[in-house]
């Protein structure tokens, strides 16, 4: 059964190394078809015995074998439900894995989907299909030959049956060789066109090598250098490597953050950008100093509506940037010589309206301004005209002004709430597809019961009076609490966290999916779960009156809130009640209630207050941010009213204990795993960050001391103006803006003094208390479980660099989740103001050179009042005083914190980017401020839609739970 082949490989890790690895070849690998061994139907033979052919090209039943490039480029086609019975060769899968992680994941998902009938054939391990690389043969050629060999084997294997084997390859040479061998080989284009499902054609990608766009047209761009040449250049210092970041204001300018170099390098002009797209990893060559340039102050966006011929001419004009830049303004400027790695994703946007309706070639305008327009081919332009669509870039040939792409799918009408929601999820790179079959297969089988074995391994805490306190309508309850008085006067306090790591085992598809998602994303009216619903709202959710698994932290705490003893254990709990914050507050305040639960809550509340005081005395900051809640019309789901959220005692009670649990866990896991504990740090901001804050406070006569967290907290407490109650809150909002981002990290990567969490004033911190909605907490759970011997470790958990790369992903996802959340609030704000124009009271938060930033407390909104109309820059009547930070027009001077009245409306000039526009009403500045709208009129429009006081939660919409702590 075993044959031994030794193959030799060279890798470049600093130098050349000879690697010898064994490679066993076998003869027991199944072809994966039910046509043979019919009796076995355990899912290991996914290919159907008699596939029905839909193709005019191959009318017989057949299996498809795509080559690597077809999988890489045409995964959209392969994912279509009508494409079935496909053999993915191991050679292909390995190459895909190497070249594109996201596509690899998609292929794996398809392979795991049973009704797709995809099969992964291990041709490299089969003695009949394995081939050795010949001398002088490139790796690519060898793989192509391996694919042909496997196809030939399949064809031979099935020659007795009526099943045909079809090789799909777009490589002309490969196809020719395959046909010469007597195999069926077609391009994916030929094959897809022969199918009855015509809509698939639009989704075909146009990779570089088979571009049919007017190839006689002139070449616009310089050629990209090959990877080998780039690497040589980088080593020699001729080239630099970095990630391209296109400017938001001007799509022809970009900065590149070069590896190991702090300074950003400037790239300007279409020619110099040389087909690089935002986020690509590129190789740069510095221009001679005489050609250095600086960002032009012009705001340049690609115009809509211009004909493309025009634009192509314009491209040349743009390329000729005038070089008369004064010397002192010049910045290091470079040009792109090659692409190291494309970071293309799928983009949302709309079709550019075309003059000729029947044309199949169209331009697509992405919602993200930093992405160029994309040329696509579609026959459904008319139906797609007013729709949001998704497009993927396939290539960008040298003779095309725009990259070429293909249509992926249609999201829905522009302006529709669901469509816009999806757009913002996609634009923030939030994975939000339904969970794949592979992921779902790792869920526990229902009905789920607690076994004897489970009980044996866990501490039984079902007798305790445990309850959970959460926002109303919360279904993913991940924490519960209890408290009881001990005989010695101390308290026993328990924090019980949902034991998600019991259900999500390391390394399986479910785990990988959760690790990739990183966090649950909360939009205003929607929740995108990190783990499937069965876990998040059922098995893991610590609901009342059911037995649930928990990971418990149990302290003995003295009445002065000193921790006497800490104990960690896996447990079974029986929550007695799921309370809302308000309900818990009522219970605590009710003088007649004396049941165990109430006593327990009162104990917790008492201790929490002591804890909070201690924490604040330590220098923890209490910062302000405004969170809003929308009141939604029950019929149309459009927001009717917005309110800022209010906080109760019980909110802070839960928060205190969560902080305490997180800190205790952080200490424990760091002690056991000094190298690879997943912690969270919040670096102290550099003093320069505080300058705007100090300046602003000074204008009102307050001194803000930023020498330490404690000093800052104290001076913030003192800065109170009685006549402006909002002043202190605004200061705190400004302080929040000065802060750094809190991030996850692996303890081995930093010095212990850098572990500090500035905002919470604790030397060490982690996230442990919300494993249902954060992956970081799952890792903390696993680490802690290993510490107490409750679970097994695995290699990735103990590897500090693996933990760090996980942290990097989590940090990215958290940031994106935050942005998406904000974007969602914005979206709802826009929908809210769509029908109305309203005057509101606001406060000036910042004074800028050409604008005022205004905070509207009623909605927790922040907006900008532009002081000069764009386009006519000189006409501003305002004079900016940089020293005192004021703007003066005539006899009116506007300071920071000044109250204003502004008029809110929606600027609809750009279909893709609706903006909230603010106009000044009071103080009245002739020629600038606008008339106040009649308040009554605005109310009429509002009341006509019958405002119901039902909130999002009441309407049966997916409930939300806002993060308790986002720091």
């Amino acid at each position, binding site marked *: 059964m075993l044959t031994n082949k030794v193959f030799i490989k060279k890798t470049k890790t600093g130098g050349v*190394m*000879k690697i010898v*690895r*064994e490679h066993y070849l076998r003869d027991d690998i199944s072809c994966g078809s039910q046509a043979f061994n019919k009796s076995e139907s355990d899912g290991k033979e996914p290919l159907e015995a008699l596939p029905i052919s839909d193709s005019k090209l191959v009318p017989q039943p057949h299996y498809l074998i795509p080559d690597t490039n077809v999988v890489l480029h045409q995964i959209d086609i392969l994912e279509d439900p009508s494409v079935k019975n496909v053999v993915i060769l191991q050679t292909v899968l390995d190459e895909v894995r190497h070249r594109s992680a996201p596509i*690899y994941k998609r292929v794996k998902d398809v392979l795991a989907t049973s009704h797709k009938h995809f099969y992964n054939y*291990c041709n490299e391990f089969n003695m009949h299909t394995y081939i050795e690389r010949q001398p002088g043969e490139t790796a690519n050629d060898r793989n192509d030959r391996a694919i042909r060999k496997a196809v030939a084997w399949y064809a031979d294997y099935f020659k007795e049956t009526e099943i045909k084997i079809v090789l799909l390859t777009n490589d002309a040479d490969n196809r020719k060789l395959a046909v010469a061998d007597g195999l069926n080989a077609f391009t994916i284009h030929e094959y897809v066109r022969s199918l009855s499902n015509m809509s698939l054609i639009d989704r075909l990608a146009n990779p570089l090598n088979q571009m049919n766009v007017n190839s006689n047209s002139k070449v616009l761009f310089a050629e990209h250098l090959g990877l080998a040449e780039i690497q040589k250049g980088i080593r020699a210092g001729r080239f630099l490597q970095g990630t391209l970041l296109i400017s938001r204001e001007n799509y022809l300018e970009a900065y590149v953050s070069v590896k190991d170099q702090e300074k950003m390098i400037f790239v300007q002009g279409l020619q110099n950008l040389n087909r690089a797209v935002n986020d690509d990893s590129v190789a740069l060559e510095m221009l001679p100093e005489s050609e250095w340039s600086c960002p032009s102050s012009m705001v340049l966006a690609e115009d809509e509506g211009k004909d493309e011929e025009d634009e192509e001419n314009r491209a040349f004009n743009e390329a000729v940037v005038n070089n008369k830049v004064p010397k002192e303004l010049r910045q290091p400027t470079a040009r792109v010589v090659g692409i190291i790695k494309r970071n293309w994703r799928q983009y949302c946007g709309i079709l550019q309206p075309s003059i000729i309706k029947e044309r199949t070639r169209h331009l697509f305008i992405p919602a993200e301004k930093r992405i160029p327009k994309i040329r696509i081919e579609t026959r459904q332009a008319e139906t797609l005209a007013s729709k949001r669509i998704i497009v993927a870039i396939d290539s960008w040939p040298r003779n095309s002004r725009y990259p070429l792409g293909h249509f992926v799918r249609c999201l829905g009408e522009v302006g529709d709430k669901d469509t816009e929601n999806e757009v913002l999820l996609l634009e923030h790179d939030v994975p939000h597809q339904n969970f794949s079959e592979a992921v779902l297969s790792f869920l526990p089988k229902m009905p789920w019961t607690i076994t004897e074995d489970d009980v044996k391994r866990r501490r039984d805490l079902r007798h305790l009076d445990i309850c959970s306190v959460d926002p109303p309508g919360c279904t993913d309850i991940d924490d519960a609490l209890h408290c009881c008085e001990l005989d010695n006067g101390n308290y026993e306090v328990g924090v019980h966290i949902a034991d998600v790591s019991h259900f999500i*085992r390391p390394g399986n598809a479910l785990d990988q999916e959760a690790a990739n998602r990183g966090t649950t994303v909360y939009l205003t009216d929607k929740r995108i779960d990190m783990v499937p619903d069965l876990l998040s709202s059922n098995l893991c959710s610590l609901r009342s009156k059911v037995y649930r698994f928990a990971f418990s932290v149990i302290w003995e705490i003295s009445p002065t809130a000193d921790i006497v003893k800490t104990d960690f254990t896996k447990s079974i709990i029986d929550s007695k009640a799921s309370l809302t914050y308000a309900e818990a507050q009522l219970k605590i305040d009710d003088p007649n209630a004396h049941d165990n639960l109430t006593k327990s809550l009162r104990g917790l509340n008492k201790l929490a207050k002591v804890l909070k005081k201690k924490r604040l005395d330590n220098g923890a900051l209490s910062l302000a941010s405004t969170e809003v809640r929308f009141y939604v019309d029950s019929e149309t789901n459009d927001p009717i009213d917005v309110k800022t959220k209010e906080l109760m005692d019980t909110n802070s009670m839960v928060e205190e204990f969560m902080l305490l649990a997180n800190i205790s866990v952080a200490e424990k896991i760091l002690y056991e795993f000094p190298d690879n504990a997943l912690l969270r740090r919040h670096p102290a901001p550099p003093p320069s960050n505080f300058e705007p804050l100090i300046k602003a406070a000074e204008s009102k006569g307050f001194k803000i001391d930023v020498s330490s967290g404690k000093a800052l907290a104290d001076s913030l407490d003192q800065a109170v103006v009685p006549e402006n109650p909002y002043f202190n809150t605004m200061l705190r909002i400004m302080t929040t803006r000065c802060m750094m981002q809190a991030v996850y990290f692996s303890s081995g990567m930093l010095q212990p003094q850098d572990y500090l969490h500035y905002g919470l004033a604790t030397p060490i911190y982690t996230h442990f208390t919300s494993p249902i909605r954060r992956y970081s907490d799952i890792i903390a759970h696993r680490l802690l479980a290993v510490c107490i011997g409750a679970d*097994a*470790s695995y*290699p990735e958990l103990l590897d500090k660099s693996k933990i760090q790369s996980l942290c990097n992903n989590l940090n990215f996802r958290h940031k994106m989740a935050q942005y998406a959340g904000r974007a969602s609030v914005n979206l709802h704000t826009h929908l809210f103001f769509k029908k109305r124009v309203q005057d509101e009271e606001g406060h000036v938060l910042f004074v800028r050179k050409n604008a005022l930033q205004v905070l509207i407390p009623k909605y927790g909104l922040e907006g900008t009042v532009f002081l000069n109309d764009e386009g006519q820059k000189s006409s501003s009547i305002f004079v900016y005083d940089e020293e005192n930070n004021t703007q003066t027009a005539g006899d009116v001077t506007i300071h920071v914190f000044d109250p204003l009245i502004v008029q809110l409306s929606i600027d609809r000039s750009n279909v893709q980017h609706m903006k909230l526009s603010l106009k000044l009403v009071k103080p009245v500045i002739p020629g600038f401020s606008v008339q106040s709208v009649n308040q009554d009129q605005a109310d009429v429009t509002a009341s006509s839609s019958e405002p119901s006081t039902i909130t999002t939660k009441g309407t049966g919409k997916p409930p939300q739970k806002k993060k308790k702590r986002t720091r």
Partner: protein
Amino acid sequence: MAGMELLSDQGFRIDGRKPHELRRIRFKKGVFRQADGSAYLEQGNTKVLAAVYGPHEIRGSRGKALHDKLLINCQYSMATFSTQDRKRRPRGDRKAQEMTSHLKQTFDAVVMTELFPKVQLDIFVEVLQSDGGNYCASVNAATLALVDAGIPMKDYVIACSGSHMRDTPIVDMNHLEESSGGAEVIMAILPRCDQIVFLEMNSRLHEDHLSGVMDHVMVGCKDIFNVLNQQVQDELCQKTELDKIVTTG
């Protein structure tokens, strides 16, 4: 997307083996005439040479002699060309010293030492090519060398390694699998008495998985034993056949 998939979804390890499958084993006894017993063994790409001298008089200081049993002297070394980077120091480094003492312990447990008081037995092991499982191959090769030398032993002593990957126990790890950072269980057993004479584990493995891995390693050891024993017996039979022909003819 870094690193390699050590166990694929199809259940293949990186070199095409199934989790429970061993690498190819080939060996030859009596490769040297000078030594009293010798053997050359390949387990996949791990290639080991073992030579046994003695029992003979104590060499060096007489004080080392044990009055009631045989003194086993081991020396483990790795050829300079055995690894990817050329080794600077073929013997005497920490790893080799540790390995030497492990080998000594193992063979103390299996050689019938009480039969040879006050004398010494030398076991020299040289790793010619290393691709994981050096200890295992050394033990197996030394066992064969002892068999070749005709030293009385309780049983064969057979070693094998194993680990736990994606919830499946694997046996006989190669270098790539060893260096992936997972746990490694190394066991030497007496296959016919079901006794463990040596057990070592690197890195962390949860105790729930330990017994499963140990069971599989045990099976792995027995598989190795069958391979070795089969060939030893075959060769023996051939030799007696030959001897018969010589004496009769």
